[in-house]
């Protein structure tokens, strides 16, 4: 069957091609298309009926005509050929080389859609990853197997932050067998180059697999890209025992491509024109991270989600937040003040932090210190609001102290250099430096022992 080419295209629009009168075509199968100029295109069956087959064409349907379009059904699902040779290579969204080197042939072809990991076979993620960034390590810790997105917006340095995480992420005191899977959907050439140079400068290029779809590449290809990239990540993690960090940028471009195809297909829109299955679709991608019992590797995911018009309630960040285990939210305000990384700690959260930190993992006081900083920062924000109305001079001494704290917190704790790699102990000591400006009685979230150990009343610089 796979040798037969059909010239039965009936309609083509918006990246979709309808072929009629070919029977017994399997849902989800891969398709090869030859257009009137003899160019090859790739597609996938997204609706299979007795008389009509709907195909999404990864290279788009521009310049396709009805009479000279030849379709071949390959009778196999979309696959990626996996082998250790993936490392160091660059591919497009459907796993074809785009680095000018030959395709990988000596490996196993794996379906890209993946099947759900049995929750009973999972291991709970609890190994603290030190990223060297205080707002993450101290307040929103990342653990192995977690999916922790960066919620950003146009013009904010999410790429620089993601690259810094990739450069610095280590398990404290362990030389690890790591790998990086970089999945870029609809990114600009300069962003793609920035990442490549960042990997190359830190000498990790040999441990990186890149899947790149540029902003001017066909959007339909973005639908396959994260699945292809995660197939590679799962192979590296669960077959080759690597600890894989997957950086996906930008998930918003992915969701927009999904909407484009859904609209063309005539699916009933739910919110903002996105199809009702956006949640399930995103979940299929994000849920592929994790740890599996009796396997040594792990898949940790740091997707970048840019919030359209800075709106965190937009369906893409909203649904993402319901699937991922927290989020790191970047703030335009901090960025404008020149704070890097401009992490807004209030809406940021790591759900898996609680079991990855504390006595045996980082330091005993860590959970309470994080809690205390959050509580003080929230009070400081109230003081800031008050100051903006009645003026800072009118504030009580207590509120003045909050203001000072918030300023130093933003500048010294949140703000750090792009090459500054702080150990978790440095981060916690810095936190205590800030906490020590408050009298002991004002710190009710930390324990008496913590205060005795780390509070340095009177030592603070006058």
């Amino acid at each position: 069957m796979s040798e037969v080419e059909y010239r039965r295209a009936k309609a083509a629009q918006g990246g979709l091609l309808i072929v009629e009168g070919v029977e017994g075509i399997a849902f989800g199968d891969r398709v090869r298309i030859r257009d009137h100029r003899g160019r090859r295109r790739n597609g996938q069956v997204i609706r299979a009926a007795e008389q009509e087959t709907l195909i999404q064409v990864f290279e788009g349907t521009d310049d396709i005509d009805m009479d000279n379009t030849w379709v071949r059904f390959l009778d196999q699902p979309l696959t990626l050929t996996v082998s250790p040779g993936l490392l160091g290579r660059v591919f497009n969204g459907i796993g074809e080389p785009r680095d000018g080197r030959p395709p990988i042939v000596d490996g196993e072809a794996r379906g890209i859609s993946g099947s759900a990991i049995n929750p009973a076979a999972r291991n709970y993620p609890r190994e603290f990853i030190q990223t060297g960034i205080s707002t993450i390590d101290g307040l929103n810790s990342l653990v192995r197997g977690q999916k922790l997105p960066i919620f950003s917006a146009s013009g904010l340095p999410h790429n620089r932050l993601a690259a810094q995480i990739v450069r610095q992420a280590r398990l404290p005191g362990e030389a690890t067998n790591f790998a990086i899977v970089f999945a870029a959907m609809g990114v600009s050439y300069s962003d793609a180059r920035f990442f490549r140079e960042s990997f190359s400068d830190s000498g990790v290029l040999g441990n990186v697999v890149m899947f790149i779809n540029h902003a001017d590449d066909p959007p339909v290809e973005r639908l396959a890209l994260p699945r292809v990239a995660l197939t590679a990540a799962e192979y590296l993690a669960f077959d080759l025992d690597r600890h894989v960090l997957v950086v996906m940028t930008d998930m918003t471009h992915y969701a927009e491509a999904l909407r484009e195809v859904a609209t063309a297909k005539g699916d009933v829109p739910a919110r903002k024109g996105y199809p009702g299955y956006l949640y399930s679709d995103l979940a299929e991608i994000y849920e592929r991270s994790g740890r599996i019992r009796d396997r040594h590797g792990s898949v940790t995911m740091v997707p970048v989600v840019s919030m359209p018009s800075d709106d965190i309630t937009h369906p893409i960040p909203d649904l993402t937040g319901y699937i991922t285990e927290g989020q790191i939210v970047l703030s335009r305000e901090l960025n404008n003040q020149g704070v890097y990384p401009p992490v807004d700690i209030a809406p940021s959260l790591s759900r898996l932090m609680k079991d990855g930190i504390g006595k045996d993992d980082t330091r005993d006081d860590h959970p309470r210190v994080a809690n205390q900083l959050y509580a003080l920062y929230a009070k400081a924000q109230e003081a800031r609001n008050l100051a903006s109305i009645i003026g800072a001079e009118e504030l009580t001494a207590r509120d003045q102290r909050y203001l000072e704290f918030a300023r130093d917190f933003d500048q010294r704790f949140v703000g750090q250099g792009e090459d500054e790699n702080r150990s978790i102990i440095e981060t916690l000591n810095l936190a205590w430096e800030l906490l020590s400006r408050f009298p002991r009685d004002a710190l009710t979230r930390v324990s008496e022992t913590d205060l005795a150990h780390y509070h340095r009343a009177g030592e603070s610089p006058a």
Partner: protein
Amino acid sequence: MTESRSGYIREINGPILRIHLPGGRNGEQVRIGSLDIVGEIIALEGDDAIVQAYESTDGLRPGEAVHGLGHPLTVELGPGLLQGIFDGVQRPLQEIASIAGDNIPRGLRIHSLDRERAWQFSPTDGLEPGGQVAAGTRLGTVQETETIEHRILVPPTVSGELIDLAPAGNYTLDSTIARVRDAQGKVHKLALYHRWPVRQARPYSRRDHGVEPLITGQRILDTFFPLLKGGKGAVPGPFGAGKTMVQQQVARWSNADIVIYVGCGERGNELVDVLESFPQLQDPYTGRGMMERTLLIANTSNMPVVAREASIYVGMTMAEYFRDQGYDVVMLADSTSRWAEALREVAGRLGHMPVEEGYPAYLGSRLAAVYERAGRVETLGGGRGSVTLIGAVSPPGGDFSEPVTSHTKEIIQTFWALSKELADARHYPSVDWVDSFSQDVSIAAGWWAKEISGAWSSRRTQALSLLARDAELSRIVNLVGPEALSSAQRWELEGAALVKEAVLQQSALDEADTYCSPNKQFQLLELVMQVFDQGKELIALGAPVQELAEHPILARIRRAKSTWRSDEGDQLAAFASEVYKAFSALRSEYASGQEALP
């Protein structure tokens, strides 16, 4: 498979298929194609049926065979349920992991309950062959776990003359333990388990009203917004507000007999957290392992959407089954929004006309139908049992006016609204005292008055009105600054802060604070309100607010909740009298000071 009819696939569109199957029935289960995957008929059009598949349809082709199984989606109800972890259509996940490895394969044929294991059955005394049995009659018991005795009842559809009953002994699920001849003369063989269609509520004699609160060990819930056993509650909140944490705390510490946790469209890693942490937890009421009374249904967000829709019904049917045995069951559904979205997704694929936010018009009625299966009832066997349903709601963007939240709000009695602002300030549990409500405070008050203290009701009201005053005064402060407030008003702000920090905030991660007994709840509330009242008097006597607010004993009051565990009530009481002494010392100081003034 005697009644099985055959047809074939006509069209595949994601999880929705059109099949040709003459004589198909709505709700009927089908087995599809060479992959043998399972689905359910959701609509009929002539000889065609629309089917939703519980498993991925990748690789199916039009023309492949389909078999109608002649029955709707059912679950197996019997010993072996507890401590189990099932997926959305009651497939045992641990078994599957041991057979099939890390991922869940398709087309698996596996029993929900273990057929190999023998259970020790003890027949009910005095039940003799020849006597009459009815639906709900207790045939005997199986001690399923140390804490839970599994009562084997005559299924709701059977009654008649008992022909024979097995003697005490070990039986597997498939062995017949009793035979019953019904009025038509038909003989029913009864085993330790039976099947029940999930979308059909199990029958009971009559509805009963709730009489006592469910104690969850969480102060903001028990003291401020009580939920009755047999009640319906909802926990809405945007992501990150701590819904899952609230649900898990209720699952851990509530004084129900059985807890059913339905992770509906949940995060895989969070379900593993439950799986790994529950077996290590101790039930505060029995001292036994928490898992012994717990049953988990895990449908992670990446499992097929249709199984997600089914998971709530599967959980509810199991809850009703234990209710029928006379138990108080708590079912937690996390999250009903994911369930509603599954409805929407399927409706969208079927081309149903969307109404609000793309949801189909039947969203409200479906939601109500699920919640209405909760309640306290007189069972068929004459006992009392209850199902308390607590549904998490995940409103997009935290907007409580969206369809799922607003429909839910109309149905439930207790509303635990979670607030993003509180969560951002790490005020946990982030239950908002303004938006939350409970319609059952008066019934709960009766219980508290009888079990703990007659002052509960008035103290609770005082605390809530203090919090309301706080919101009002904070607005003034935000406009004109704290200087505009009188001393008494500033003390009210301090008092409200004390209520928030010493009573409302509760750390799930703190060993002493994670569970708070009703007694300790009241002790803390009483302590804080006393301090507030006495402070008010002191201020009337001329004590400066600043001095009171910075009194070191307040910091100790704030830490009291995590200083003493629930079983250390005496120490807490001793601390309280120390506090009162300190305050009366202050009072005599100021009172005498005032007298000294000319």
